[in-house]
């Protein structure tokens, strides 16, 4: 429980895309605004499909939207 090990740039990308709101992004990818909030604050790791949908909205590759630091992984 707690912080996800996958970080993201969604807040920054939303700002660069005409200051898209969380609600607008949520509607585009088919989730609730609370899920977008949880993803942005690293409280939830999205499924692969949702991650791709978010990347598609920003017309960016997945690695530019999400990043994973192996140093944070205890395994």
């Amino acid at each position, binding site marked *: *429980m707690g912080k996800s090990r996958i970080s993201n740039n969604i807040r920054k990308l939303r700002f660069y895309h005409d200051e898209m709101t969380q609600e607008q992004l949520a509607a585009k990818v088919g989730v*609730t*605004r*609370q*899920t977008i909030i949880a993803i942005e*604050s690293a*409280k939830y790791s999205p*499924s692969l499909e949702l991650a791709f949908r978010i990347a598609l909205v920003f017309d960016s590759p997945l690695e530019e939207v999400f990043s994973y630091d192996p140093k944070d992984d205890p395994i």
Partner: protein
Amino acid sequence: MSYKEKNVAVSLVTFTLILGFYLVQVTRIVRGGGLSDNVFGLWATVVVLGIIATIILTIIAHIGFAIFEVIRTGDDDPKIDDSEDERDKLIDLRGTQVAYIVSSIGTLLAMLTFALGRSPYVMFSLLILSGLVAQVLGDIFRLVLYRRGF
């Protein structure tokens, strides 16, 4: 707080009240002469209460949320997002897992009392208790996941 989260909170309050009622009534029965046929009425009451209270409080919560949204937004027909996305489903699944584990342990303990020679009334009372506790703990776990993430 999302709509689903509010529903979980309503469920938690409902079943906590029912659990409290059940514990008070069982304590009263035990002090009044022990468990016997008099618990059948209590079991039926708890089961019916659980079903009816859940339905009624869910409806009241729906109406309450709608009224709150009308007041908050000033819109006569507010859009309430009651959809269930992948995160809601995952949290619900995790909560159900916790509830099943607690319920299973409670069931085993209940059967153990019967195996050790206690009356079947004790076993059935513990079965009802474990079901209520499982529901409450499952809802608490869901709220923790909503707040703290996973």
